[in-house]
């Protein structure tokens, strides 16, 4: 019951928040050997904690194809979520995704290492709650609040989406995967003023859409990953098919790096700004 007293000393809203998310393990006030087992947790950790308090982040954090904090990793030890990598670091706080690296997490739990579940959020509300929760666990609640505030300001600066009917957007990923409802991508598209093809235009599709079917639904905007994938694969070749290039002129396509909107963080506002300007472009184009 030691941790309850610690919680008592924190501001009451934070205590309420912590209780709402139901952490069952206590952690030191400012943990100093923090390990993250998940990319989204890596990003929050690198942004919110002091560098010397971080013991290890995942190998994905250093991969600029998926990570928004790759340039901040530098010499930090990288892990692949294996127990043998984590135990020697003697972590005093482990950030983990609730559905991955389960065997490592179970082992750490048995050794009474404090674990904080960092789930992938699907709405901005959940993102803010997560930032507050993680920053509190890191002992840096003020930094979390500052991040939330700056994200809100960035969103306010963008103003409301353009008037008129909401254009249809499709987020097309390698191998022809569409991003569907219940994701941050879906939420950001909605906030930018778009309808998501995968959420509204299609029924019962299995996640993969052929180029032919995609074109058939005539989306107004094609959203691609960063196309700067340096090494080839058949999965990426789909995205540079000439039919896509001919069907979507420059005005009707936008590139959003997946690192911006796969996890909860300030990158979401960057993605939102990009899509908002694409929406304005489309609105002006159709108004002429």
């Amino acid at each position, binding site marked *: 019951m030691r941790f309850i007293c610690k919680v008592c000393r924190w501001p009451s809203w934070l205590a309420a928040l912590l209780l709402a998310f139901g952490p069952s393990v206590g952690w030191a006030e400012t943990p100093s050997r923090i390990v993250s087992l998940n990319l989204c947790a890596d990003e929050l950790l690198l942004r919110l904690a002091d560098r010397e308090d971080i013991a290890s982040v995942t190998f994905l954090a250093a991969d600029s194809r998926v990570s928004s904090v790759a340039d901040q990793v530098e010499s930090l030890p990288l892990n692949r979520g294996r127990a043998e990598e984590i135990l020697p670091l003697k972590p005093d706080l482990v950030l983990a995704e609730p559905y991955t690296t389960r065997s490592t997490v179970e082992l750490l739990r048995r050794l009474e290492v404090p674990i904080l579940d960092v789930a992938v959020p699907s709405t901005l509300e959940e993102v803010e709650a997560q930032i507050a929760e993680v920053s509190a666990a890191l002992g840096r609640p003020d930094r979390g609040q500052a991040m939330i505030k700056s994200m809100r300001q960035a969103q306010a600066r963008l103003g409301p989406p353009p008037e008129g009917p909401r254009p249809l957007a499709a987020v097309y990923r390698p191998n022809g995967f569409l991003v569907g409802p219940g994701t941050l991508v879906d939420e950001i598209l909605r906030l930018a003023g778009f309808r998501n093809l995968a959420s509204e235009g299609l029924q019962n599709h299995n996640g993969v859409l052929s180029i032919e079917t995609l074109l058939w639904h005539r989306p107004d905007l094609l959203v691609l990953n960063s196309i700067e994938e*340096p090494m*080839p*694969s058949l999965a990426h070749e789909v995205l540079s098919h000439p039919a896509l290039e001919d069907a979507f002129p420059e005005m009707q396509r936008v590139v959003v790096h997946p690192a911006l909107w796969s996890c909860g963080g300030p990158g979401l506002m960057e993605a939102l700004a990009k899509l908002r300007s694409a929406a304005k472009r489309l609105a002006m184009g159709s108004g002429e």
Partner: protein
Amino acid sequence: MTESRGNAPMPAWLLPGLGLLVILLFFLSLGVGTMPLPLTGTLAALFRGESSLETLLLLELRLPRALLGLLVGASLGLAGAAMQGFLRNPLAEPGVIGVSSCAAFGAVLAFYSGISLTFPLALPLGGIGGAFLSVLLLHLLAGREASTLSIILAGVAINAFSAALTSLVLNFAPNPYAALEIIFWIMGSLADRSMEHVQLVAPIMLLGWLLLLASGRGLDALTLGEDTAASLGIDLGYLRLKLILGTALAVGAAVAVSGAIGFVGLVVPHLLRPLVGQQPARLLPASALGGAALLLAADLLVRLLPTGPELKLGVVTALVGAPIFLLLLHRLRREMAE
């Protein structure tokens, strides 16, 4: 294989009939896709010079797929017939004896290393290199009078080895999606190919076809044995070179854009051989047309079947081809026992 059957005339309808079948399947292939495209209306719009979503779908998605079905199928059928004549082995076929999987390995090297990004021709060249090496290796391994079985066993080893090398390269490839793409290279598919692929490989395949079709007379003579063929004035060295190069060009280029699709070169010559009177020179053009028809039909089937992700082409051709392979093996054993 009796003399009377050997000299039986080829029915006059055979080549035109097969040609018509290929044209029919080609247009069916243009008409079938995930979305209902009014083919005649779209073709009419195309001829009026209009451009719309429909003409784009037709020209950039359906047309390359149908063209590649035709080109790849013809290459595999023709190469199968040529290899059976060359190795004098009814079971020889690019897929069975490892030529296709070696070609896939060469193409995989060229593609995933990034070389083909800056130099697109590297993709078919990689395939051709792999195919050339395997045909050469088989020729050396099999020697002059190799038994049917030893060629097939050599093929099994080449197949296993090149599949392992392909898997190795894919696992080392820097793109995280690469390791999952082995199924394309081993089973083959024509999904999401573009006109760029067609332009890249069509001239190479045509060159390979010319070399193989020009070997017809030599293959006819070779049915009588190498010594007899030589006494008939056939330059065996030149014939072998034409066959090895022709097979490498046709199969290597085909595999580089479609993956290794097996059994087409086995099934088609086997079905057509009784009709052409056992003469390789006649079997070659018939097998090219038959291969095109078979692959176009298989590619229609994978698009019409209501599977989740599209079925790979090699699955269909193996379902048809493997039983025929077993049947041929059974018949060969009986003939040997007699």
